[in-house]
């Protein structure tokens, strides 16, 4: 059994959060530059220019890319031949989140759902982190992280369609969701789609789909084709960057699919704004 030190995880995850808050990953920058070159609307092109200038300022001066520094979301794969020395992984992630968000002057955005009181002085600074665990073979711990903002989360939707709806039903549901969202989720977007599984499984898959690098090819050729069809369909909506009108509403569509019940076709759409702050670290 391989051992990984608790403090090593805390400090590695802290660095990941700090870095991600001010440095847009290369896949996002490349996708935004491509969009700026291809966008037909001059107003949307100017918005994209500001977004790219913002990423340069943030990186150079170590400022948060966006004031919505998000809830801290993690997908963690733990090998069955590794154990953590000196504490458990959930505590390590939460400690790293609270310390990184506080030290880097990131916003604490968690609140009580009814009173709306900020939880920074009760539960902890921007705690709890949202953590999804999986057990895999091997002796490594793989941690994927994203800072997930509220504006794009607010337009996300899940539905369980009847199986007869088929692919056309999925395309229609995604189009309606993004069309209705309009300018609110800060386009140009990445659209994560979970298909199959159960009600909650497809929602989690749609979230995880957002962690994939923009521009990467889906290993399932059938899903890769559906991603292209939906991408083309969504870019006909005309919403453009920040809703100003344009030809580049969506940068990428990412699909994750799962086997499902014979009676159901669950579909979930999780939306990511243009500031797709994500990264990963392996221990």
């Amino acid at each position: 059994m391989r051992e990984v030190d608790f403090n090593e995880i805390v400090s590695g995850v802290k660095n990941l959060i700090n870095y991600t808050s001010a440095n847009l990953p290369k896949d996002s920058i490349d996708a935004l530059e491509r969009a700026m070159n291809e966008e037909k609307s001059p107003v949307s092109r100017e918005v994209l220019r500001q977004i790219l200038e913002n990423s340069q300022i943030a990186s150079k001066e170590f400022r948060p890319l966006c004031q919505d520094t998000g809830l801290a979301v993690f997908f963690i794969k733990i090998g069955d031949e590794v154990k953590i020395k000196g504490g458990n992984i959930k505590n390590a992630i939460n400690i790293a989140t609270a310390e990184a968000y506080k030290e880097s002057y990131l916003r604490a955005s968690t609140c009580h759902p009814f009173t709306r009181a900020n939880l920074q002085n009760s539960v902890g600074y921007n705690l709890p982190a949202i953590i999804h665990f999986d057990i895999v073979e091997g002796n490594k711990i793989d941690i994927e992280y994203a800072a997930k903002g509220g504006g794009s989360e607010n337009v996300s939707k899940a539905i369980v369609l009847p199986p007869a709806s088929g692919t056309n039903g999925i395309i229609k549901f995604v189009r309606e969701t993004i069309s209705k969202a309009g300018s609110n989720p800060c386009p140009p977007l990445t659209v994560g789609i979970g298909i199959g599984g159960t009600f909650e499984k497809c929602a989690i898959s749609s979230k995880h789909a957002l962690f994939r690098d923009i521009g990467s090819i889906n290993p399932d050729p059938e899903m890769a084709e559906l991603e292209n069809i939906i991408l083309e369909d969504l870019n006909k909506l005309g919403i453009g960057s920040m809703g100003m009108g344009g030809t580049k509403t969506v940068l990428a569509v990412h699909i994750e699919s799962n086997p499902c019940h014979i009676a159901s076709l669950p579909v979930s759409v999780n939306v990511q704004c243009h500031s797709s702050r994500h990264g990963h670290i392996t221990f």
Partner: protein
Amino acid sequence: MGTTYYLKTPLQNEDVSKLRAGDIVFLNGIIYTARDAAHKKLVDLMSAGKNLPFDLNGAVIYFVGPTPPKPSEPIGSAGPTTSYRMDSYSPTLIANGLRGMIGKGERSQEVIDSCVKYGAVYFGATGGAGALLGKRIKSSEIIAYPELGPEAIRKIEVEDFPVTVINDVLGDDLYQKGRAEYEIK
């Protein structure tokens, strides 16, 4: 693209009435920050007949909850938040002198109608450009509701703060116009 203007706050009626959806405006002077929680408190004060923490006449409100400032800086990153959450409060403020709002995303028909009736505009700032926009804020002071943390009301001074007119006094809407131009049916 529309006309470019440099305007000082508080906004004058003649400033507001010349602006058209699509115009670019660089704002200079004092503006106030408020999100949902602060809006609710402002409207509650007005219905109780009490004074507001700032003068609404010609005022511009920025829908923002900034990140905490680093010790040497006036404010952290400060881009707009989604505006529809303020839709139920904005008409009351507009009817009482508010002349400009800065946010992102579509407004309700009631807000658009209030802009026409009383002469106010809704500006869009680039969401997610918090580092760029934060640098255009030269000073910041919490003037009410510090207990709301990022949602407290701040009096901020902006310099050439870049915004685009989304809804004007004629009832025009840049989001609708822009989308209609590029939508493929």
